[in-house]
């Protein structure tokens, strides 16, 4: 049901062709689509019914994310469902922004990581004091086009979650262009006014849980992306002829296609199972382990499927004219976001050891 309606919505809007147009325009997203998605209940899928959502759970969110991935839609579905609503529904479910996010009338990006001197991730030092933010945040997905930012910062009272409007004074946004045409944001705050939404240990807990949600949903998005990339490639090798027959009749091409097919099926089964298990699991560490399982698998499959798809397309796969390159580029971005497969294998193993030691 959910899958069919999401698929219909995206296909009717133009499928991956729409995504290509948005990329060629300015790399942003489509406000009308945001509203349509909101009307279909997409953003509120994991929000309790009492707060205006569908109250369904992460597995249902995964179904939607898969459909987003299939058409490589640029709208911030995972950012909203996983991160911004993931934080607000846990920390301040009655805040007015909840309704706006669920209703698609606002988009908030979430900023919690910081860049260190060697360019990689570092300890967070961004401060919140006297209602004002000072410091910087990196790798903010959805920053361009967002109406505001949910920022996790330090304060005298410990960690806080604050809300800064996009147009707030002392806020600057540097754009870092991404392979898929989107932009990642680096935020700087110098005495930027911001509203405190929550504080204390609950903020860290909610952040960890929201990041797990977003990680698992990004995995689902990669599963949908891989699924469609493989379909496109399968169609291509059935029709493209060389040596007077379809290249898909060569055994080497056939076996490679089979390997990609098996990989996407394993990824789909594994990621869906992980999301379903997260829905029946309260322990944040176990949820993080399940999210790592999902992302490790999805990234591995998506990398292999999109890269091999280019090879199977041959020279045309390397052109912008064919859609398969869009899938490769989107896979690059989604793989890097929230940790790649090597990173999540490490997280998964460490979590498993910790659980084993605790028993």
């Amino acid at each position, binding site marked *: 049901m959910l899958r069919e309606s999401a698929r219909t919505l995206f296909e009717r809007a133009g499928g991956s062709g729409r995504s290509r147009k948005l990329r060629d325009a300015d790399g942003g997203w489509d406000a009308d689509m945001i509203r349509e998605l909101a009307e279909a209940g997409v953003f509120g899928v994991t929000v309790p019914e009492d707060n205006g959502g569908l109250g369904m759970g992460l597995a249902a969110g995964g179904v939607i994310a898969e459909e987003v991935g299939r058409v490589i839609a640029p709208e911030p579905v995972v950012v909203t469902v996983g991160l911004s609503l993931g934080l607000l529904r846990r920390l301040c479910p009655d805040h007015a922004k909840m309704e706006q996010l669920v209703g698609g009338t606002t988009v908030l990006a979430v900023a919690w990581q910081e860049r260190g001197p060697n360019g990689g991730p570092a300890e967070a030092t961004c401060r919140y004091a006297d209602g004002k933010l000072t410091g910087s945040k990196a790798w903010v997905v959805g920053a361009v086009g967002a109406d505001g930012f949910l920022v996790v910062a330090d304060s005298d009272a410990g960690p806080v979650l604050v809300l800064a409007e996009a147009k707030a004074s002392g806020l600057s946004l540097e754009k870092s262009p991404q392979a898929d045409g989107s932009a990642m944001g680096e935020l700087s705050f110098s005495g930027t006014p911001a509203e405190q939404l929550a504080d204390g240990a609950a903020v860290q807990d909610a952040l960890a849980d929201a990041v797990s949600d977003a990680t698992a949903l990004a995995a689902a998005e990669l599963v949908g992306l891989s699924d469609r990339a493989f379909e496109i490639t399968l169609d291509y090798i059935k029709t493209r002829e060389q040596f007077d*027959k379809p290249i*898909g009749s060569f055994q080497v091409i056939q076996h490679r296609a089979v*390997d990609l097919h*098996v990989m996407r099926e394993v990824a789909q089964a*594994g990621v869906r199972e992980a999301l379903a298990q997260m829905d029946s699991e309260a322990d944040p560490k176990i949820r993080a382990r399940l999210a790592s*399982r999902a992302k490790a698998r999805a990234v591995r499959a998506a990398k292999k499927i999109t890269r091999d798809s280019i090879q199977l397309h041959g020279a045309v796969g390397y052109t912008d004219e064919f859609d398969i390159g869009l899938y490769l580029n989107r896979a690059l971005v989604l793989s890097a976001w929230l940790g790649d497969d090597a990173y999540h*294998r*490490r997280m998964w193993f460490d979590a498993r050891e910790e659980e084993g030691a605790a028993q």
Partner: protein
Amino acid sequence: MTDWNAMSDAEFRKEVRGFFEAEYPEELRHLPHRPKFAEIEHWHVKLHAKGWVAPAWPAEFGGMGLNAAKLLIFYEEQQRWGVNRGRDMGIQMVGPLIIKFGTQEQKDYWLPRILSCEDIWCQGYSEPGAGSDLANLRTRADIEGDEFVINGQKIWTTMAHDATHIFMLVRTDPDAPKKQQGISFLLAPMDQPGVEVRTITTLSGETEFCEVFFDNARTPKANLVGELNKGWTMAKALLSFERIFIGSPSLAQNALGQLESFARGRGAFDDPVFRDRFAQAALDVEDHAALYGRFADQLKRGETLGADVSMLKIWVTECFQRITELMIEAAGPDGGTIGPLQVGNVNVDVLASFYKARPTTIYGGSNEIQRNILSKAVLGLPG
């Protein structure tokens, strides 16, 4: 007679688990080799008394009559406790064949003897020139009076040296236009002058496989199962359950468990590179199990499995091999050593696992053949 299917899954699982844990002989758990019948006879007697020899057979023929859901639970528990499958070619292959295609006389005569293991069966499919290309088989059976006269050779016949009977695919019409035609299903006694069995030694020194030579061996015409020259279609019809069975995660899961205790004992987890490769293998098995579950659910819903079930076998056998390769790596300087390696109070036979994993990508239709099948039947690729 108990209607097992009427039980809840949980109840049934408890029942099966309870019986295995209470009754299965400790010394037979997780046997590393295929036993001769004499070695497991005492267990077979218990199982027979319980009426549990043939879980999949209809109750009217002495089976448990389990539906697919219950059957999976039965096998899961069997694997979990390390219960040996016994000499089950009769149960798994010949019995279903006779039940489906046999005459009333064949059912009355053969089925009780299979259940009691009075007859012990082996499977005569492969030949030296007919492995991946099974339809190329050349062993002939010619009618002479009331008998078939069999000439030819079978190979990779598992445990033929401990079997009383063989069920085989033979060529009964060498002139059929396609080689898949003209093949029949035949039962034959092994204890006769025209049958000679030679064991094959594998590269690890095991002797589970045999060659079987037929030099004017004989079997009554009554031992033809199904129609003459229709054996190929029947053989394919038998494969449905086999195909998910061969793709079950159990072998890889067991190997992973062994790898983990061995690696822990040897301190291999101190090495982050090893941890990464272990994690990859463990996730490969975990996600395979999720996919396996999807197919098992199909069976449980009473659906027939399509050709895509082959992907389970491809994935899990290659996982299994990688896991045993990691065991060798974890063994370090002992990686070439035969026999159990002690770590703490665990014994792990690293090479035995490695050797066991090798032929899994070859038998049951090599992984190359499985990829051919998926390519055509599932992906619809041409040629």
